[in-house]
């Protein structure tokens, strides 16, 4: 085995390397949990609701009513009149920066954390 050639400083380097990689991974991969949900209708901000209260919110769009459910610090679009139901199938949103769009009914829910994160939509 080649292990006997590793000197004490090398072990320290490996150790600090491991710690560094783990910290980097935790920092970069664990997205921040959202505090608020921003609901837009027809491009305008409809309501900004905190995730602390469990509630159902009805938003009227050109096709009908979309129902947004907030429960256990998560949010989802529970029902929507859009034909393909993409935003409903997206399911629960929890992390800051996540977004569900119901384009036909012009309704969207965006999760907001304490600071704005960049993604391909708002970059």
């Amino acid at each position: 085995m080649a292990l006997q050639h590793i000197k004490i400083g090398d072990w320290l380097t490996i150790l600090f390397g491991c710690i560094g990689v783990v910290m980097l991974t935790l920092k970069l991969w664990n997205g921040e949990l959202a505090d608020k949900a921003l609901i837009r209708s027809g491009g305008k901000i409809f309501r900004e609701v905190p995730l602390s209260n469990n509630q159902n919110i009805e938003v009227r769009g050109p096709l009908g009513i979309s129902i947004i459910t907030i429960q256990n610090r998560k949010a989802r679009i529970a029902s929507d009149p859009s034909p393909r139901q993409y935003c409903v199938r997206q399911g629960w949103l929890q992390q800051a920066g996540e977004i569900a769009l119901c384009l036909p009914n012009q309704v969207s829910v965006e999760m907001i954390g304490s600071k704005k994160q960049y993604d391909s939509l708002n970059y």
Partner: protein
Amino acid sequence: MAVKNNMTASIIKKSNAPLPSRERGGGEGEKVPTLLKLKTTAGDHHIARMAAVALGLTLIENAIPTPLPGVKPGLANIVTLIVLARYGWRVAAWVSLLRVVAGSLLFGSFLTPGFFLSLAGAVCSLVVLAFAQHLPTRWFGAVSHSIYAAFAHITGQMLVVYLWLIPHAGIAYLIPIFATAALVFGTVNGLIATRFMHNADMSDIHTIEKQIESQT
């Protein structure tokens, strides 16, 4: 070992030599043909040999399929590490940069983004190695050098990717993957280099012992 006169080009004028045929025709007055000759030293040949070995390892490495573009073992750096330990930073820098340029010519990637990524990685590694080589050898070996160089390598590459190719914060999601690869491959390459040098030292000792035995 200090390498002097690297790639010194000297122009040798030979006034007595016969004129080349294409210059003979429209010749007005006397033309002195110039002969460009590269004077190479034994040190240059040594660097070229080492770079060729590194190039061979790059070739082998390119045949290995990778799960993600950019995650490569960097086998050629084993040569850089050994050269650094044996002949110093200057020779290691020559070998490393020659390998990058010659490798890009070999794979047809000269002056493409891939070439600049390799170059950035190699330059950053060499800068870090310039400092890391001064670590006390009692406690730090090639494994440490390799890991520091590997981290410097991906740092340089990520900087080029972010500042030039993909100026988007989204590439931060890839950093943990590259950092893990750097740690793993850095350690493995360092171990290979250390093991190689250890074996070479052992064989040196054996030959010396045999010489002593034959003399007595």
